[in-house]
């Protein structure tokens, strides 16, 4: 079995510069529920920033604000000097988002999914597009899936195709929503390597929303922990190897206690 290698990746240098992200006083409400409370955050140009937090803590909503897919109730998100919510920003910043479930176009083959961006933006000839697409597919060992449709792919393969699609876009800001979920440990490690190598070679700013502790600790320049819609902690990976905050420690290294009263309740319910 061939295992994809991050070292096989050679990205084309970006034409433009790389961008940082600034979040100022961001609050988001859905109806009466406040999902994000006064978030302040700065992601420096060229860094890998991992955003971690329990399910439902607002990580993905924050990522959507950075991608310009959600409008803030109050506060602002800026990519470099540009307002992330302004549609014109996408003309100035190459931004790619790797969605958690892939968000591949079901009516298009894997090849056409990857070719869509360069074709629609008329970036190069069909031969150039083919080279670009096949290069991205080879990085993620997806050459054999080129003619397949998303419905024929496993969850992990869909995730890899989504990452390949992002690579084809040659982004200046790369956002990942749970890039290693549904992947086996080998593929997770490879994805981690690809994220790191990509930054190494192209200085792309990367924001990674993840639950994967080992991914965050191994590739992040900085880590942010978000809990209940608030930034609970910010720091370098070493700060989170043995965190002093019990809530963060419990989140990063949960202890499975079979004597927990909740398990007792389950046992009783089966009797």
């Amino acid at each position: 079995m061939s295992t994809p290698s991050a070292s096989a990746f050679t990205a084309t240098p970006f034409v433009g510069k790389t961008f940082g992200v600034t979040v100022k006083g961001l609050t988001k409400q859905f109806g009466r529920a406040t999902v994000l409370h006064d978030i302040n955050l700065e992601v420096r140009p060229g860094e890998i920033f991992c955003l971690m937090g329990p399910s439902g803590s607002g990580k993905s909503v924050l990522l959507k604000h950075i991608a310009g897919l959600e409008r803030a109730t109050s506060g602002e998100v800026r990519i470099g000097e540009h307002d992330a919510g302004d549609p014109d920003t996408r003309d100035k910043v190459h931004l790619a988002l790797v969605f958690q479930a892939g968000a591949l176009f079901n009516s298009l083959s894997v090849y056409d999914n990857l070719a869509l961006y360069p074709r629609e933006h008329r970036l190069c000839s069909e031969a150039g597009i083919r080279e670009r697409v096949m290069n991205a597919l080879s990085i993620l060992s997806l050459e054999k899936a080129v003619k397949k449709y998303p419905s024929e792919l496993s969850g992990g393969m869909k995730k890899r195709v989504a990452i390949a699609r992002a690579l084809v876009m040659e982004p200046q800001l790369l956002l990942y929503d749970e890039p290693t979920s549904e992947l086996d440990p080998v593929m997770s490690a490879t994805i981690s390597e690809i994220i790191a190598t990509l930054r190494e070679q192209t200085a792309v700013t990367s924001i990674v929303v993840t639950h994967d502790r080992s991914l965050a600790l191994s590739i992040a320049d900085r880590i942010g922990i978000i809990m209940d819609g608030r930034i609970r902690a910010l720091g370098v990976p070493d700060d989170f190897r043995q965190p002093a905050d019990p809530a963060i420690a419990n989140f990063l290294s949960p202890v499975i206690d079979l004597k927990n009263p909740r398990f007792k309740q389950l046992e009783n319910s089966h009797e």
Partner: protein
Amino acid sequence: MTFLNAIIGHIGGTVLLLGRSLKHVGTLPGQSRRVIEQCYIIGFTSLPIVTILTFFIGSVLALQSGYSMENFGAKQFIGTLVGLSMVRELGPVMVAILIAGRVGSAIAAELASMKVFQEVDALETMNIPAERILVLPRLAAILVMMPPLALIGIICGWYGGALVSEYTHSISVDNAAYFAALKAYMKNRDVIDGLLKAEVFGFVIVLVCCYIGLSTRGGPREIGASVTKAVVTSLILILVLDYFVTKALL
């Protein structure tokens, strides 16, 4: 008041969608493959059911009117009645209803599914406007396909009526008499008006179904709700518009 606000909001949203789509009209020549694909889906695959439905509508119309008109000795005008009814009213309306049920529902389901499963968000992050590649080709395709579909439907209805008129014992109006009566009172204007109505209905159906599909929020359950909403809204709009368009054309 909330209901009224919602309706105004939806009308505004639909008009905005149309405006955003028309902004990309210059890209249509480059999207010819998508337009042709939509023409095939909207037009060619709807053809069998359009022919069957309109043929039997013409047949039933001839049967019912033949039965009634015979009572006052006017059955020689069956051709006129079926001809004008099909061309001015039943042809365009029935084809539109069929398009709403068959094509409108499919459009709403596809776009709602793309919205729910974040494909539309993916397009947005790729700086590819959904209106350009999802809405505009469908609007262009319906404008191309609706007149021929309506015309085929009208002709099938005429022949359905002719067949029933000739071979139903109680009517027994032969084809020559039927088509002579049909032509006698038919003007080119009637055909043009009928096709124009069909064009308006088709355009509104596709636009509304695209809007409802792209406005879907939530999970897979909402896809079904959007499809129902799209079909019901389209049917209501067809009948409401029918009155106003007919009044304007008379």
